């Protein structure tokens, strides 16, 4: 049989337990807007009786648990790299798109006006104005090519700068994770829950930047690897992601422990940026270069076949590009033609008024380019289509991944998130329990008073 003093201590113990419940509710409400916070739940258990014919010794707090959804967190960490990649690609590509300009006011109109200038020249092959017009349109076309090439190069540089910035962010987060790992190892259980919340936030931020492999440590920390299993964080140690300039292009290559791992990184923001920088933009530049090279070569070949105003055989109209690579950024009208319009070879025979060559050059716009199977305009249209569809695909895929991530976040929130209604109910529940326990306490106290009164008599 328990004595009254024992009951009194049981009542105070129970009051403390309900108080803990109230505290947990307060903590949950306080952290309703804290990123990564997982809802805390106090687990109670009845204290077993210590003697026969006793209902028990009240209530014990077994644990204050954080309602973690480890599986969903892991799934989120797998989805977020794809979301980050598509977001970065959509962002970069929408910038690349604008470099192409609108239909009818970019390289396409430059091409049309260039060929139209030759058509004008065909009407009046001896006209100085028409010759000047051809030179001017050739220069305009060349400078449009130069500009678009420069804008594409700058989009590539932008992506490179962002890659470097992302590497800094990744290293910052890695350092944070390492120090959290160290702290989790040394902390008690309650404190470690908060640290684990922060670890979750850091891992989630990291997974948006780069695809990571996470191996949980027994004490609640996490080891992180990138690429094909290169360590980023092991326990309290960070293996920083490095940057080295690639030979030739000078763009940033990612290194881990001295090895270049750029090609292994495909996910996360950095993966998207690398894809834009190393794969997509170079491809667009190559297509643009091919177009510039094709035009310069086709026009030059036709131009050399004709005769200028003085009856001499024609030279090159554009400065001939040696290679397709870099042709767009280097395209210029040859210095000789620029200086002297009479060197434009409009004639097919050595006669000033002949226009056969001007007509032949005009008709180049309807024939396949040198080294290709499509006309100049079709080649440009194909590039516009390619960039547009890449950008559209990235945006669509980003939308898809956004939805998946949102769905997973909702599922995780159903387990880990704080619901105000629930907390209000808990508040009421613990408040009422506290009141009831206080009443029990006062009942025991009254009983004790009665007992004490007996002793006094």
């Amino acid at each position, binding site marked *: 049989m328990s004595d009254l003093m024992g009951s009194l201590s049981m009542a105070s113990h129970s009051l403390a337990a309900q108080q803990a419940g109230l505290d947990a509710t307060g903590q949950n409400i306080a952290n309703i807007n804290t990123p990564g916070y997982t809802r805390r739940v106090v687990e109670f258990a009845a204290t077993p009786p210590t003697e026969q014919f006793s209902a028990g010794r009240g209530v014990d707090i077994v644990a204050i648990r954080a309602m973690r959804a480890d599986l969903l967190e892991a799934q989120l960490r797998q989805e977020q790299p794809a979301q980050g990649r598509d977001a970065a690609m959509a962002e970069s590509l929408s910038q690349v798109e604008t470099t192409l300009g609108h*239909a*009818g006011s970019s390289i396409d109109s430059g091409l049309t006006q260039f060929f*139209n200038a030759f058509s004008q020249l065909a009407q*009046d092959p001896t006209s100085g104005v028409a010759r000047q017009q051809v030179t001017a349109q050739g220069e305009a076309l060349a400078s449009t090519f130069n500009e678009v090439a420069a804008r594409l190069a700058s989009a590539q540089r932008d992506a490179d700068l962002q890659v470097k910035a992302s590497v800094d962010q990744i290293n910052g987060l890695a350092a944070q994770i390492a120090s959290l790992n160290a702290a989790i190892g040394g902390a008690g259980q309650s404190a470690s829950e908060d640290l684990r919340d922060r670890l979750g936030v850091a891992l989630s931020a990291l997974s948006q930047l780069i695809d990571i492999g996470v191996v949980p440590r027994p004490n609640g920390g996490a080891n992180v690897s990138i690429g094909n299993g290169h360590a980023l964080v092991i326990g309290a140690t960070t293996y920083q992601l490095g940057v080295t300039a690639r030979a030739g292009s000078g763009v940033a290559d990612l290194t881990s422990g001295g090895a270049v791992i750029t090609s292994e990184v495909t996910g996360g923001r950095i993966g998207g940026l690398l894809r834009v920088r190393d794969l997509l933009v170079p491809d667009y530049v190559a297509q643009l270069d091919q177009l510039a090279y094709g035009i310069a070569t086709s026009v030059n070949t036709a131009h050399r076949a004709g005769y200028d105003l003085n009856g001499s055989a024609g030279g090159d109209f554009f400065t001939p590009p040696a290679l397709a690579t870099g042709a767009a950024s280097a395209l210029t009208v040859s210095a000789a033609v620029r200086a002297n319009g009479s060197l434009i070879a409009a004639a097919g025979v050595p006669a000033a008024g002949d226009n056969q060559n001007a007509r032949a050059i*005009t008709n180049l716009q309807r024939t396949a380019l040198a080294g290709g199977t499509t006309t100049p305009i079709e080649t440009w*249209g194909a590039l516009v289509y390619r960039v547009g569809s890449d950008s559209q695909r990235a945006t669509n895929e980003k939308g898809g991944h956004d939805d998946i991530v949102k769905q997973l976040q909702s599922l995780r929130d*159903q387990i880990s998130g704080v*619901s105000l209604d629930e907390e209000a109910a808990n508040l009421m529940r613990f408040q009422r329990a506290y009141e009831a326990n206080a009443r029990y306490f006062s009942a025991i106290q009254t009983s004790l008073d009665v007992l004490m009164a007996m002793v006094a008599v």
Partner: protein
Amino acid sequence: MRITFDQSFRNIESDTNRAAEQLAAAQRQVSSGHRINKPSDDPAGASFAVTGHAAIGALDAYTKTADSTTSRLTVADSMLSDIINKITAAQTAAASARGSAMTQSQRDAAAANLQGISDSLLDDFNAQFHGSYVFSGSKATTAPYTSTGGTVSSYQGDATAVSVDLGQGRTAQIAFDGQSIAQGSDPADIFTVLSNLATAARSGDSVATGQGLDALDHALDRATLAQTHVGNSFAALDDVRARLSTERLNVTAQLSSTEDVNMASAITNMSQAETGYRAALAAFGRIGSFSLMDYLK
């Protein structure tokens, strides 16, 4: 299902964002009038627009060529009319010098008349359009015939017919071989014929005058034939211009249906998007405005 605080805010935030994006896109379509504002709006359409604009550019170039060809042919046509008139006048003058009743002074007058006709014919053959000779073949900067001390040179141009493109596979001739009109397959050109006729008229040589009149007949035939060709070209040019403008209309219509918005549906879309956005905003305002907390005492 537990509905958590964070989740409801996250959902409403992303839904509002999406509604705002849709509204912005709809507004951009209405304000710009374009369905495609960047290639990713419709990659295939954007690529079609590129070829469409180029096609219009090429058609406009053909139209310009047709216009300038018309001006040039107008010059050629009026020169040929003049040439025909002059040849007819020469025939009259030469015929009038024939016959035994003519006095020497009358024959001299006829000869002088023929000489004058020869001089003005030279001007006609040396006609220029924007500084290039029309009857000199491809030697646009060389006068077809020059006169030195009353003697007209031989043909200085060439036989190349200069043409321009008025469409794929359609051409029009813009510079003519002067010799084919002035001489053709005859042994002497019209200037020599006129000079001989003047001599014959002066001396009353009716045999030579008869031969000269025959040669003038041939010249008249050649000039008339050339003018008929020019006339045909005029007719063809009108036809070409009509076709070009129909073609341009077609391409423009296709381009417009690709590039431009259907205003009625764009405006409907915009008001739909606006309603959606308003609803999302209203929902945002109401979220979390009540909970069980309100009922705690």
